[in-house]
C-alpha cells in the first residue's frame, strides 16, 4: 500500500501499523534527499501549507517549515501572539479565513487537546497535528521511532523506557502508541506524581527506580520537566528531581550495556540530562532533529499525495 488510511494526521492512535511503516519507509527516501547537494524536490509545488502555531515552538515549527520548503510547497506562518485571535476570533473562523486564501494543508499546534480533531471536522483542508496540549505529538513519535529504527533495526521486541514528566507529555503518549504498534515493549519511569493514573491501562509498566529501568531498556527517551504546564508542585525541587531522575555520563557508563539516549528537546541541561550525557556517544539527539525533517516531509508528501 502506498497511501495512508487517513487524510489527516491527528494522532498516532488513529494510524495503523501499516500507516506508520509507510511513513518510516518514505522518510528513509527523504533522508537521502535532504543529504543531496540539492536538497529540494518539486513534489508539493502546487500546494500551499499554513503553519498555525497557537503555542510556542522552535524545533517543530522550523522542522515543518524546512520540510515544506524542501518539498517545494508555498508556506505561510501564523502565530497567535500577533493575530486576530487576540481580538476574539474563533479557531474555525481563523482557519477558514486562512483557507479562503487557497491554502491546502494546515499544520497546527494548539494548547487544547483535541483542537486538531475539531478542526479536521470543520475545515476542508488536510490537518496535521503539531502538538495538541498534553494529548499527542504524532510527528515527534514518528521521528523518534525512525531514529530508534535507524540505530537498532526493527523495533519488534525492543525495550524502550520513557523517563521524566509523563503526566504533561504529549510526546510520551504518542511514543507509547507508536512503539507498541511497531511491536516494542514500553515502560515509563518518573516520580509517582508525574505518572498518569491510567497509564497501565495502555499496557505500559511503571518503574519508579531510574537505575532499574536503565538496566532493563535498550533506549531511554528522556522527557523535559514541563514547568509551564504544572499548576502545582509535583516534586520538592529541580535539584532533588535531578538527583533521583537525572541521567549523567557516570550513570550511563555504569550500565553493563550501551543504551541509546534520546530527548525530544528542548533539554534542561543539568536537570533531566547532564551535558556530558547529552553530548555523549549514547546520545542521538541531533540525529532526531535531522530525522524530524525527513519524517515530516514523508507525512506531508503522503497526505498530499491522494487524488482530490
Amino acid at each position: 500500500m502506498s497511501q495512508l488510511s487517513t487524510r489527516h494526521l491527528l494522532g498516532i492512535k488513529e494510524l495503523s501499523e501499516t500507516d506508520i511503516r509507510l511513513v518510516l519507509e518514505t522518510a528513509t527516501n527523504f533522508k537521502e534527499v535532504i543529504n543531496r547537494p540539492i536538497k529540494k524536490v518539486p513534489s508539493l509545488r502546487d500546494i500551499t501549507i499554513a503553519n498555525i502555531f497557537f503555542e510556542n515552538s522552535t524545533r517543530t515549527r522550523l522542522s515543518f517549515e524546512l520540510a515544506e520548503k524542501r518539498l517545494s510547497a508555498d508556506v505561510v506562518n501564523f502565530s497567535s501572539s500577533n493575530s486576530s485571535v487576540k481580538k476574539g476570533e474563533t479557531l474555525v473562523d481563523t482557519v477558514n479565513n486562512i483557507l479562503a486564501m487557497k491554502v491546502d494543508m494546515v499544520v497546527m499546534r494548539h494548547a487544547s487537546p483535541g483542537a486538531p480533531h475539531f478542526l479536521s471536522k470543520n475545515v476542508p483542508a488536510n490537518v496535521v497535528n503539531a502538538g495538541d496540549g498534553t494529548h499527542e505529538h504524532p510527528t515527534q513519535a514518528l521521528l523518534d521511532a525512525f531514529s530508534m529504527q535507524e540505530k537498532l533495526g526493527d523495533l519488534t521486541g525492543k525495550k524502550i523506557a520513557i523517563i521524566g514528566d509523563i503526566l504533561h507529555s504529549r510526546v510520551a503518549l504518542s511514543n507509547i502508541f507508536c512503539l507498541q504498534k511497531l511491536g516494542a515493549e514500553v515502560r515509563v519511569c518518573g516520580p509517582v506524581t508525574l505518572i498518569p493514573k491510567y497509564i497501565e491501562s495502555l499496557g505500559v509498566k511503571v518503574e519508579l527506580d531510574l537505575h532499574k529501568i536503565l538496566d532493563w531498556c535498550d533506549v531511554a527517551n528522556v522527557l523535559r520537566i514541563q514547568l509551564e504546564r504544572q499548576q502545582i508542585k509535583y516534586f520538592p525541587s529541580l535539584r532533588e528531581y535531578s538527583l533521583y531522575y537525572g541521567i549523567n555520563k557516570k550513570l550511563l557508563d555504569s550500565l553493563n550495556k550501551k543504551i541509546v539516549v534520546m530527548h525530544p528537546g528542548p533539554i534542561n541541561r543539568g536537570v533531566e540530562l547532564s551535558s556530558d550525557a547529552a553530548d555523549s556517544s549514547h546520545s542521538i539527539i541531533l540525529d532526531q532533529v535531522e530525522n524530524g525533517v525527513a519524517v515530516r516531509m514523508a507525512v506531508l508528501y503522503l497526505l498530499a499525495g491522494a487524488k482530490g
Partner: protein
Amino acid sequence: MQKRLVLDQQQIDITLKRFCYQLIENHDDFENTVFLGLQPRGTLLLDKIVALLQEISGVTVPSGYLDATFHRDDFRRRDFPLKANETKIDFLVEGKKVVLIDDVLYKGRSVRAAMDAMIAFGRPQKVELMVLVDRRLTRDYPILPDYYGVKVNTLDSQYVVVEWVAQGNPADAIWITEKVKS
C-alpha cells in the same frame, strides 16, 4: 491473457552485448562516464550492463540507482501516490557523461522526471539514454533513446513486460501483454 514474445533469452543476451560494444565505441575508456539505472526496473538492466562491460573490457564504470518518484509530474493526479524507491548514488554527476538506463521507454515522462532528479547531483556534461524496449509513437515528451534494444508498436491497452532471471523468472524475456480490464 494474450501474450506475445518480443525478445527471448538469447536475443536479450545479444542485445546486451551490442549495448556494451556501442558504449565502448562512444565512451572509449569510460574515464568520465557514469551509469544511472532508473528505479525500479532500470536498475536490473544497469547491473547486467555493468557486469557485462566488466567482463568484455575489464572496466568498472561508476554506477548508481536513481529514483524519480518525487520529481514526477503526475503526483496528486493518480488515485494512489507511487511508492518511492531507494536512490543510491555515491558520486556527483557534475561534468560527467551520464548514461541513463531503463527497461522500457513509453511516454517519456519517467525519463523527464529522472533528468530532473539527476540534476540534484550536479550538472552533467552530457546525458544519454539507453532502453531495452522503445515503444514507438507513444511519446508525450520529445525524448528519444541513444541506445535501444528493440522498437515495438503497441497500443495503450497493452503492457510491455521485461522479465529477468534475477527476479525469479525461468529466463530473461520481453513480452507484450494485454492490460486486464477491471
